[in-house]
């Protein structure tokens, strides 16, 4: 039993590795530059990064108004 099932498993592993070997990959410097670019481009639209004033963020406590 162990004979046929481990051969079957190994065939799947080899098939998977052959497919992965065929992938066309990008250099880390390029991929990292793209990640950095994405972060910087979207930085202003990120409320947790830039901090949002109490008036617009529904979760921040609002300053109480007092009647004069």
């Amino acid at each position, binding site marked *: 039993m162990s*004979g046929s099932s*481990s*051969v079957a498993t*190994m*065939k799947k*592993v*080899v*098939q*998977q*590795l*052959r*497919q*992965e*070997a*065929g*992938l*066309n*990959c*990008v*250099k*880390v*410097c*390029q*991929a*990292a*530059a*793209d*990640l*950095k670019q*994405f*972060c*910087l*481009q*979207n*930085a202003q*639209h*990120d*409320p*947790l*990064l830039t*901090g*949002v004033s109490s008036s617009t*963020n*529904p*979760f*921040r*406590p609002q300053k109480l108004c007092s009647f004069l």
Partner: protein
Amino acid sequence: MCDQTFLVNVFGSCDKCFKQRALRPVFKKSQQLSYCSMCAEIMATDGLHENQTLASLKSEAECLKGKLEEERAKLHDVELHQVAERVEALGQFVMKTRRTLKGHGNKVLCMDWCKDKRRIVSSSQDGKVIVWDSFTTNKEHAVTMPCTWVMACAYAPSGCAIACGGLDNKCSVYPLTFDKNENMAAKKKSVAMHTNYLSACSFTNSDMQILTASGDGTCALWDVESGQLLQSFHGHGADVLCLDLAPSETGNTFVSGGCDKKAMVWDMRSGQCVQAFETHESDINSVRYYPSGDAFASGSDDATCRLYDLRADREVSIYSKESIIFGASSVDFSLSGRLLFAGYNDYTINVWDVLKGSRVSILFGHENRVSTLRVSPDGTAFCSGSWDHTLRVWA
């Protein structure tokens, strides 16, 4: 805008069948050829039908692994934090608990935000699933599941239903109704059936399909209406603990992490594993895609979080400190992807600068392990759930 182009599409004439198709580079006896996807797949299974011995298969596997390592090493010319050296450092962050959601009778195991950016669904060890309005902290719905340890819950994109499951090995969908006379449990629909506990679930882009991950080592895609299994994903060698869908509208991939220390990226249509990453030293508890869809982060019991880039096909950053020795249970990115929030088993939440690899802030507040963490859909806040029975919304 956010293409998952880790395969570069070149059109031309296939070197094998000569048809005009999208081509992929293929290595045959160390010669590079261009095959169309059909011929590439045939080539991958070529020779596997003959009676190959276990030994010859093992040696081919070793040889391929060695070649993959070599190719990957060639691409590794620089580290992410080196590329980010000139990026402005982040200032001090002041993030506090703005809301505390109390009401669960036992450990909170999972939570999810509604697309309306204010409702939250959470599930707990005592079998209760609660829908909260996070602005007012009111409980809007509550359901008691027939099992304990409800480890997974998810909000439907329409906001009209929730899905949950755990030790019952199933994923059930409950339509949300505001009719006081209606019993939510009566309208329950059992969608997924696994042979072990349900660890994670997520709706796809619509209310019609659910993706599940289970302790039985598989992930599966189900049709909600009929309960039919549409696709199953086999490949993990142990329990699958988490999954996340790619953010792109047209994206058809998802990533899963498991107890076999592997994170695997799957093609939802074919059921094939497209890429696999095995650099963690222990169970992967949480995986989350980077907002652009080109990378994903993982949190593990080995006390580190790591960033994997899909196009470079390798780990590009690791977020760890010698002083952090407890496992990370849950991770999520801020909207721009610059911040990575990670909840740990030492009751804290660490905020990491994704580009520079440094820790920006530690958040204290929970009185037991942080088990789940999600950033709200509009990025204004994030919510954490803990074994201390509460959920906290931070902003």
